């Protein structure tokens, strides 16, 4: 717990208002960082000799539809020397104007951001290699968003067989 507080103190001392909010849930510390100060915060967390968050475990985007701001991006950091985990959370109002890429701090971020862009559609500023990673190149939309339809097949009964069959998307001839 002490280390949790030290991290926040250090961030507040060095970056001031970059820390928007701090929350604890089930023993996990989450630090909400302003989007435009994210890289400064990451650099401090990685390079400060007392913190040394040298390992980026994961980047997860979260869709809070219908709330605003709608998207949140989580960075799960780990400090191997201190055996400590920390979550940075960034609110994203416009998915096309997402957080800056963390690739300069942790190389793996390029790869993880690609997944986020593909499935959630949050565009990371400065990541030049954002492309479809899992889905085909010509795919429309981002499936992990909450407003993305789940897909549904209408059930055909004898009385409406023709009607529904006409709408079904498969080769008719």
């Amino acid at each position: 717990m002490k280390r949790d507080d030290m991290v926040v103190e250090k961030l507040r001392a060095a970056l001031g208002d970059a820390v928007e909010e701090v929350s604890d849930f089930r023993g996990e510390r989450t630090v909400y960082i302003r989007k435009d100060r994210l890289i400064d915060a990451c650099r401090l967390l990685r390079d400060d000799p007392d913190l040394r968050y040298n390992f980026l475990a994961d980047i997860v985007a979260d869709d809070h539809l219908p709330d605003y701001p709608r998207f949140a991006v989580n960075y799960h950091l780990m400090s191997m020397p201190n055996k400590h985990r920390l979550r940075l959370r960034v609110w994203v109002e416009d998915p096309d104007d997402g957080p800056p890429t963390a690739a300069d701090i942790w190389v793996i971020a390029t790869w993880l951001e690609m997944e986020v862009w593909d499935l959630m559609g949050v565009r990371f500023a400065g990541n030049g290699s954002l492309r479809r990673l899992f889905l085909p190149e010509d795919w429309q939309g981002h499936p992990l968003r909450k407003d993305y339809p789940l897909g549904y097949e209408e059930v055909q009964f004898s009385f409406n067989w023709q009607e529904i069959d006409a709408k079904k998307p498969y080769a008719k001839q």
Partner: protein
Amino acid sequence: MGLLIPQASDTIQELSVEELRAKVGTGMEIVDAEEHMLLSMGPQHPSTHGVLRLLVELDGETVVNLAPDIGFLHTGIEKTMENKRYVKALVATDRMDYLTPMSNNLVYTMAVEKLLGVEVTPRAKTLRLILAELSRLASHLVWLGTSALDLAAMSVFLYCFREREYILDIFEMVSGQRMMVSYIRPGGLWRDVPEEFVPAVRKLLDFMPAKIADYEALLTHNPIFEMRTQGVGTISSEDAIAWGLTGPSLRASGVDWDLRRDQPYLDYASYDFKVPVETAGDVYARYLVRIQEMRECLRLIRQGLDRLKPGPVNIDDHKIVPPPRAELGQSMEAVIHHFKLWTEGFSAPEGFVYQAIESPRGEIGCYLRGNGTNKPARVHFRGPSFVNLASLPLMSKNRFIADVVAIIGSIDIVLGEIDR
């Protein structure tokens, strides 16, 4: 020479670099389009351990550049799980990393339990540990067999699968399924293990050390195997951390890091086991680490069996686990709980958690956000195979194309987990 790329129709077309880049969709920087050859390796290729496509730029036989193209097995598991109730979503985790279903069950279950704020019983913890280690052993056996097969060591493959089959029989004994076990569930386990479980695992512990010695006799000092693996696919410890490598691949690069010891979960802190570390960072080092890990698995399982005490395997809260069948005939409350649980499931509070455990491939993490309903609002898995694959281009650069096969084998990927 123009650029040659095989098409689906088996004709060879000449394309401009721009057309090709748009077509291949891997975003790879092509160094010299005029002189080098572009080879599409996979998605249907036996050495890619699933449906992985690699776009390789070759100068003669030397790899200049390489880019993985994934997504052929994408089934939208995260989206599916977000639309299922907490317990029903569990079955999707088996299908992710199908070689180690128990670890996947465990990480998801632990995330759900963290979100709910419940603590499982000691017997459930010990059994979970034993099963997770059995699963690690089974997974390492598949890795050893297939990666040796890629290097043309056929017999190792057959021996490994024979022993793995024994472990799968144990899984079938406890859960009714060989691979898609769904056995570790929120609140404990599906049910207690049968009586035959402990003797069957003890038998495994008895014969397994000799089998591991057999594999080592076939490979460890085999000159062909050494030549194919030593100094191949090296990655430094700094690069390994920066590229997010975890598991045996990280430990083979000299980074002494294992979540079981360094951020203990279950009861690992009280168990006595070594974390094998090698410093060479090549394919051979990864082989040595995994072989030693198999021995440590056996030690952990043995200690687990010794500590196994009778007791309940599920928590007493029937809002989360169903009441025992026998109670249903006598207690109205049990009937209500049973009905509510199977029609509605349980609800988790608002909040988000991240739970990470050491799977056979590295850190598997589960991010889970609850929104007060009976379905998770967001499930995300940090797949160790997915992240480990990212450093494949770095490891394969300036190696022969045949080494790429050895390197893929050594990072031990499962495409089901990469694509999810």
